């Protein structure tokens, strides 16, 4: 019988299934023929890769930090505008937090 799994060259875990060959999202459904083939592929001794590599996990975490920091800076920009327009001081805790936010962005 012909090998039904030869077409699978890579397989990663995904939220609710697998990402096969980098382009096919396969759901967890025994009625799905690709899911059945992935299970056969696993039964042959193969192991799906984790959804994210360590580098990707780090990159994703940094992306969240970047996004949160940018959002914080945007939400406190009005202090800077107020200072420029009225001379009112920016509270020290805000200055400190904005500096930390800027530093955290990569």
């Amino acid at each position: 019988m012909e090998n039904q799994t030869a077409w699978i060259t890579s397989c990663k875990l995904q939220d609710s299934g697998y990402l096969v060959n980098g382009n096919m999202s396969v759901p967890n459904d025994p009625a799905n023929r690709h899911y059945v083939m992935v299970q056969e592929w696993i039964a042959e001794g193969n192991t799906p890769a984790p959804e994210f590599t360590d580098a990707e996990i780090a990159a994703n975490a940094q992306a969240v930090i970047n996004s949160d920091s940018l959002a914080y800076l945007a939400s406190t920009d009005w202090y800077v505008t107020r200072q420029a327009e009225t001379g009112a001081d920016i509270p020290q805790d805000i200055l400190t937090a904005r500096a930390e936010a800027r530093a955290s962005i990569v």
Partner: protein
Amino acid sequence: MSNARNIAALSTVEVGATADQTKADLNAIGVSGGRKNLIINGGFQISQRGTYTSATAYSGSGTYLLDRWKMTVTGSGSSATLQDLGGSVKLLAGSTFTGSTRAYQKLEDKGLYKLLSNKTVTFSAWVKSNTANARIEAWINAWVGFDQTHSGSGEWEKLSATYTFGDLTGHPDGNVNFQVGIDGFNSVDCAVTSGDYVEFKEVQLELGSVATDFEHRSYGEELQLCQRYYQILDFTRSHLGVLHRATGTTAGLPYTVFSLTATMRAYPSMTTSGTWATAVDQAGTPTLYETSYSSVTLRGNNGSIVAGGSQWLRGGFCNFDAEL
């Protein structure tokens, strides 16, 4: 058999023949009502995966090209192509080998097996070939012994075979399938010569013991039937998809739920094709985050966005496959 002759027979039936005779006569003149053809895309109208008007190679045992038809070519050194000739398809051997090449359609259970259990059906197709190994076949948990072959004359011939099912309860989806191709009796490998071909059209499976005229369905009807097994969401126009990041969450990838065109047989696999736009306001190539039979959640793949934000999804196709 002319219609006039059968209509005359009907009048005889009215004065005392059996109900079975009446049904046979009605079948013979093609007036059976309802959706009689249990084969989907038997007229080869639908080809969502691509255009195959030029000869297209297939290999192995699992290639879907035109909708609902799975192509197979087996045998050492085997090769074959399919060509959509507009209403018919042609399988052409590209090498000389011992094996087979076939197109087959797996039937889904979902009540169909209950309908077919212990019933007689007739499978038919118009076939043209230059080999006497061109045949129609059926697999119902085993080869069922159809021995309907083409003469190899190169002319169109209508092949038909009748089969009475047993109890199909418990048979899994796809365990019943019907085929056309170049093959030996009961799929014993046969000699296939480069240049051997089989062309076929108007493939039909119907209840009863008579092969009636092919049931023509509109393109729209046939497409809807096919979309239960394969369908495409088209995002190639600019403003058809938007992915969102919910408010009150952290930054992250955006998602949105899209309704499928037809309820699918199983939770579908998804592949993407085309060129997906990637920019600060565009989500890149999506992945399938979650699925049901009737809707899917697509996730962007172009970096995190802020909570409450959104990105366009544009440029390509999402192809959903729930075939057997």
